């Protein structure tokens, strides 16, 4: 047995070493290392750069939609402040995957917050880091913390303000209790505009040697709504798919749509037509439908066939909504009725209602609203 052991550990270590960088998701691999790398968010970055040079930080709260760089920013900032060696000791990162009830706030966070930071170690990579005399507690996804846990934080934040800074990261600022919010300086992260998303995507694509056409990038941006993480994930999945066949097939916009779970345009148009939304000449449908009577049974058939295809109801409604909103000939009153129906269904679907029943309900309501 002893004969085998050294050899085995060696192979394991070896394979681990060259397995890791390959397996990393690009989202992690291309996470910004310094705050200057952050795409868009000029205002936030400018403020933080000032804070970095003066090495003084307020308590902070980052909020905004997913994929806009909140977590990346705070991680990059603390890495720049403390350097790789001190990072572990000075930063406590807690997210929703950790238990964060009131007991954890009382024990773990409090204990960490009250420790006086140790003296700075000399950075092993030779660089000089400011390493200010405080620690940072990052509460990621803070909006999923309970009210009680947030309440327990209030006094802790003030008492140890001298040696600990808190950074709350959340999607919905309204879920953070007012006393906490007022203790922080708030930074709003806006959805990325298409030019910075596309430059970031092109940067990654060139670094990974992936061939992407401008149309593909446009589809990526369209289907991710300013969520950079989502578009990077889609790009990676698409490149995996294309690279896995030999010879590699180029990525098409349709691939991206399928990965993103977007319902194909033809299906949506067809559905809209069944409901009585008149389609303009530039929209294409599957087959030019004959002038059949649009009745209850036809709508029901259509809905059940869409459900059989497995498309997600909420995605279908989003796309139908986009179609109806920009429709040129529908009067505003009818549009409003349709949108009310869709909004109601969206709420119901979020609450876990049956997809088929609700899609059918929306379809019938829209149909009723549109037939004079």
């Amino acid at each position, binding site marked *: 047995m002893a004969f085998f052991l050294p050899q085995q550990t060696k192979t394991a270590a070896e394979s681990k070493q060259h*397995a890791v960088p390959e*397996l990393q998701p690009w*989202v992690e691999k291309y996470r910004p290392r310094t705050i200057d790398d952050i795409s868009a968010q000029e205002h936030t970055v400018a403020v933080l750069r000032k804070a970095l040079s003066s090495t003084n930080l307020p308590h902070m709260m980052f909020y905004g939609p997913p994929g806009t760089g909140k977590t990346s920013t705070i991680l990059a900032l603390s890495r720049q402040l403390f350097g790789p060696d001190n990072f572990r000791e000075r930063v406590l990162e807690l997210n929703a995957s950790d238990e964060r009830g009131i007991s954890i706030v009382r024990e773990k966070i409090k204990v960490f917050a009250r420790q006086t930071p140790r003296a700075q170690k000399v950075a092993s990579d030779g660089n000089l880091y400011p390493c200010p005399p405080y620690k940072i507690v990052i509460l990621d996804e803070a909006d999923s913390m309970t009210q009680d846990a947030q309440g327990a934080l209030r006094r802790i934040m003030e008492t140890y303000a001298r040696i600990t800074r808190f950074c709350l990261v959340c999607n919905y600022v309204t879920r953070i209790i007012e006393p906490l919010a007022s203790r922080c300086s708030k930074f709003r992260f806006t959805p990325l505009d298409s030019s910075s998303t596309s430059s970031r995507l092109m940067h990654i694509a060139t670094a990974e040697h992936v061939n992407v056409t401008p149309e593909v990038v446009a589809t990526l941006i369209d289907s991710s709504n300013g969520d950079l993480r989502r578009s990077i994930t889609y790009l990676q999945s698409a490149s995996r798919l294309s690279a896995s066949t030999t010879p590699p097939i180029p990525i098409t916009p349709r691939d991206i749509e399928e990965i993103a779970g977007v319902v194909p345009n033809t299906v949506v148009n067809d559905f809209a037509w069944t409901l009585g939304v008149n389609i303009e000449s530039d929209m294409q449908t599957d087959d030019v439908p004959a002038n059949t009577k649009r009745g209850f049974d036809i709508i029901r058939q259509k809905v059940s066939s869409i459900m059989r*295809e497995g498309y997600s109801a909420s995605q279908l409604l989003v796309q139908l909504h986009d179609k109806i909103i920009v429709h040129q000939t529908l009067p505003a009153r009818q549009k409003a009725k349709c949108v009310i129906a869709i909004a109601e269904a969206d709420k119901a679907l979020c609450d876990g209602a049956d997809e088929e029943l609700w899609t059918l309900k929306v379809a019938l309501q829209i149909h009723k609203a549109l037939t004079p």
Partner: protein
Amino acid sequence: MSLWVDRFRPKTLDELHYHQSLSTRLKALASSGDFPHILFYGPSGAGKKTRISCTLRQLFGSGVEKLKIDQRVFVSPSRRKIEINVVQSNYHIEITPSEAGNFDRVIIQELIKEIAQTQQVDVSAKQRFKVVVINEADTLSRDAQAALRRTMEKYMSNLRIILCANSTSRLIAPIKSRCLLIRVAAPSTEEMQTVLEHVAKKLKFDLPPEASCQIAEDAAGNMRKALLVFETLKMQSPDLSGPLNIAKPDWETYCHKIADLIVQEQSPERVMQVRAKFYELLSHCIPPTIILKTVADRVVERVDEALKADVMHWAAFYELRMRMGNKKIYHLEAWVVKIMCLYKHFTYNIDMSEFD
């Protein structure tokens, strides 16, 4: 002797009969070494589970078929014990967190972290990571989904997650954006027929095309149902000739009876009768949503065109209430009364608006 559904379940990606392009994709992904988190979604009986197990086999070889079933006990922060069944092999683990109801978050936090933090020790394993299959992912609570978020990114080197869900509507956006979405559509009638014929060929008997067509249409895209029906029919009449009589499940005929009762007469006595029947169904563990849908489908066939839209509208309305509320029977009954009221209003032109 296992059921045909299990006996003829495809084991490798090559054996799958339909969605060929999907199979090639999965195969390519599994062999590229760069395997993402995946979310499979589609209607039930479309073959999601089969595709998952085939993909696992492609990833790890036949070792994944050596399964063992475990019962694990977790302790919630409030010191409650939660037991859950876990199916695992050396390379993957399969859980259904919704078994734990509201405590699914604890399971996600504890179990997945535990797996994520241990490395694969078997040096001969094909992949460096383990796979966690989460069934019924769309019933995960918000908290549990939030708990998955960072875990999915942080432990990417040790762990891949495969989620299996009926629809993506109930999953939060951050989870969707971290997964490769794979839609498994229900097979078309022709595709189902080829599968049925394949099974018949394996068992060495002839399947008349009319019979297979009828079975496939009756199953409406649910492959599992089709195979089960097929096996039952084969038991009943071994030669499968002549007019087939596909037996409807008991509960379905019962639901149809309820629908007929509603349409025939609208009175308080009738409501009481219907209520008794609903109780009967509920006590036999038929999910209330399915009861409501089946009855509504049947009622719709029986009423005037002008009423159909309203019947479905209220069915959807009360289905949501049922989901939000606690006592299912109230909402089923409320729907019945509403429909009776509408029906009376429509056929006898009685003004019932004061009951709204």
